[in-house]
């Protein structure tokens, strides 16, 4: 039985005392890729921000590697537990070079730059370039490369497809899958473009307006387009059209 990396039990979470996601029960085990999908405003990003300590847990418990989350003001501690969060804007530093960005992967120890290059060969020739000058796809590769070097137990990637050509996304997602397979990290990917994510994911959670409306194998959603479309377009959604 693989280890439980992330565990939400009946959680309400949000900002300033207002819940954005409600009654969320969700888990990620080591080595699996879990897709969190849903339309705009569903609460996907808030879920990730809750884990990273930037959104409040209002009810229920969130455990990372079996430990409850630290207090909000000490959000940096979560990064030290082996949680790596690639935020929507990719979280790379435009003023630093590619190499310097990669060197920030961990707080201690040597950073193996070649390892990043083995996953993303294009980074090798860009090491001394300022990250602000990279293309969108290269920036995303840099963000994922840095995630890889931090040797995460839990990797969370928010909206990888944002601002990228679909073809680049199709290339990047299998690499994320490979990272999960090779390192045994649990991966939680947030996507609006459900098709891309569902192809690589083992399991999926579908959120709509802060409520969990589906929880099960990714293949189920892949095969039932009608349910997915209904949720995205806000046509009834919910249980009545569920399989």
């Amino acid at each position, binding site marked *: 039985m693989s280890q439980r990396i992330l565990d939400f039990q009946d959680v309400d979470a949000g900002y300033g005392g207002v819940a954005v996601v409600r009654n969320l029960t969700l888990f990620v085990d080591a080595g699996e890729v879990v897709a969190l999908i849903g339309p705009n405003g569903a609460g996907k990003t808030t879920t990730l921000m809750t884990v*990273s*300590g*930037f959104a409040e847990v209002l009810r229920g418990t969130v455990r990372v590697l079996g430990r409850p989350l630290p207090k909000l003001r000490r*959000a*940096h*501690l*979560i*990064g*030290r537990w082996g949680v*790596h*969060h690639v*935020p929507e*804007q990719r*979280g*790379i*530093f*435009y*003023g*630093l070079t590619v190499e*310097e*960005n990669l*060197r*920030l*992967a*961990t*707080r201690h120890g040597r950073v193996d730059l070649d390892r990043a290059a083995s996953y993303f060969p294009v980074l090798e020739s860009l090491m001394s370039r*300022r*990250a*602000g*000058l990279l293309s969108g796809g290269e920036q995303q590769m840099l963000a994922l490369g*840095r995630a890889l070097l*931090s040797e995460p137990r839990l990797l969370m990637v928010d909206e990888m497809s944002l601002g990228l050509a679909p073809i680049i996304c199709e290339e990047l997602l299998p690499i994320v899958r490979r990272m999960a397979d090779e390192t045994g990290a649990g991966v939680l990917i947030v996507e609006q473009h459900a098709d891309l994510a569902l192809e690589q994911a083992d399991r999926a959670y579908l959120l709509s307006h802060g409520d969990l409306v589906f929880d099960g194998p990714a293949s189920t959603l892949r095969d039932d387009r009608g349910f997915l479309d209904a949720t995205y377009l806000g046509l009834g959604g919910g249980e009545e059209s569920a399989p």
Partner: protein
Amino acid sequence: MILGIGAGAIIAALGIGLVLTYRSSGVINFAVGAVATYSAYVYSSLRTAGTYPIPPLPNPLAIAGGPSLPTSVRFGSSVAETPAIAMALATAALIGLLLHLLVFRPLRYAPVLGKIVAAIGVMIVLQSVVLLRFGAQARQVEAILPTTPVRAFGATVPADRFVLLGLVSVTTAVLWLVFKYTRFGIATRAAAENERSVTLLGFSADWQAGTNWVLACTLAGLVGILVVPITGLTPNLLTLLVIPALGAALLGGFSSFVIAAGAGVGFGMVESLLLIMQQRLAWMPKLDLVDALPFIVIALAMIMRGRALPSRGAVQTRNLPDAYASGMSFRAFIVLVLCVVAAAIFLPFDFRNGVTVSLIGAILCLSLVVVTGFVGQISLAQMALAGIAAFGIGSFVQNAGLPFALGFVLAVVAAVGFGLVVALPSLRTRGANLAIITLASAVAIQYLLFERTGWFGVSALGRKSVPPPEILGLYFGPSTRFPIGDSKIPQPGFGIFVVLVTAACCLVVTALRRSHLGERMLAVRANEHAAAAAGVNVRVIKLTAFGIAAGLAGAAGALRAVQLGTYSPGSFDVLASVSLLVVAYLGGISTVSGALVAGSLFTQGFWTVVTDRFTNFGTYQTYVLGLALLVTLVTVPEGLDAYHREVGRALKRRWRRPEPPAVVHEKP
């Protein structure tokens, strides 16, 4: 030239302190020189008197006639050198820690401008503590470093200059290595760009910023202690050296320790070279080139290096308070003007003066509302532009004998002309860089125009005067007898004139905000790229704004000249420009009502008069004001006007159905 090494080393050290703070917390620490001064005074006090000063604290007992708090702690008759240095450095480090925890950490999401204003506030507080505890008397401090004369390149120089230079070089090299290669350094640079992303990586941005504040302040303290034996100890000397240090930091783009240090040393050398040349060469102009020239060089360098639009990958962090359009009807405005006219006639003389000062201050702040509030360009030269008009009206009316009205108009035109020149760097630089270049322009204007004799300069006595104003045979000077009211000075005639000019200026700025031109200005403020893409000519907008702002500043300057009658360059110097920005920001930098609030906060303005009537801060006034400024900034980072608006809206919500306010939202 070697003689300038000492001065150069100080400028360089303060310069790298500035770079260090900026890179770790995005704050331009105007107070770095003041921290050096304070540490030096602590050291000197421990060595000579064995006392450690305690800054003034609020003392409710004193009001009731109770005992006053102690001003210092005594450690025998004198403290030995090493413990004294250690205590002074610990003080500097503590100041750094407190600044981080109490001021700049709460302000980390405030607009860039808010942080600049806070840093200036800190400078004011530290300087007033120095004045309160040690007085303005210059002190001699015995040397710490060896002063044996050394012969080098044909000059004899005490050895301590070289020790200082070596110290600065080593510090620079260490900082360079740390920021380039260690993870702490890289993470600090990353945190300056995006704090949240660094936190996601497991770094505590807060801890890093705090560490760097402590480092930078300790460095400044060390410089202070080591250089005062050379320079002598006065409250202003090191505090004002922050200005060339800012120039040096700017040349290094606020990111390169090496360039900042090199430029600092260079400044020191060029200054001493210029001094020697002025003494030896007959043809060299005897202007105060020494203070102005480095700045002209910087301004040119920045203009050549800068770009018309922010380059790709540049981080844009600008977030100024909302620029509300005034919702007041014209009729209500007329009533308000009449009320103020009545106040200017019937109030007691000290209040009459307060009203006049406040209104002139409000016009000055309006000029910042246009250039900073509407277009987002920080200008620290507005007081210098006001000075152009002040010295201009003196030259035109007193010296050339022109009629007052014509002289007034010409003075404003001259201010606009200089304003357009000051605006040129804004076409290719922005943000904090522009702020410092405009500061440089203010220095240049002060030394190259005001402090020499002739047009736009002083008369032989170092002052300038202007005769009482007269239009069509009607005299209305501050001391011309007015038919109504008491006979005390100032007489209401001039006050009424000021009210009318202020009203006109308010109308102009309100109309500007409501016009299409105003909308384009706000577009430039929000995003230069997007504005350019939408067909707005960014350059023309910036020049127009600077021109209008200079006109407003000029009007205020001319009025101020008439109010004072006789004045010196000190009224329009760099510090006046800097404090103007502080007051304007505190009031509310992006609205007309904010400018009026700010005007009332001016020294000798309405609030000063009111507080003087009912309280007695006496010598503590600057100190209390500086602290009040910091407290206000930390609690209301967007200025008092935004706060009043919040309160107003909350009251409205309670009593009435809410109306959608006319808001221009600006996304960071």
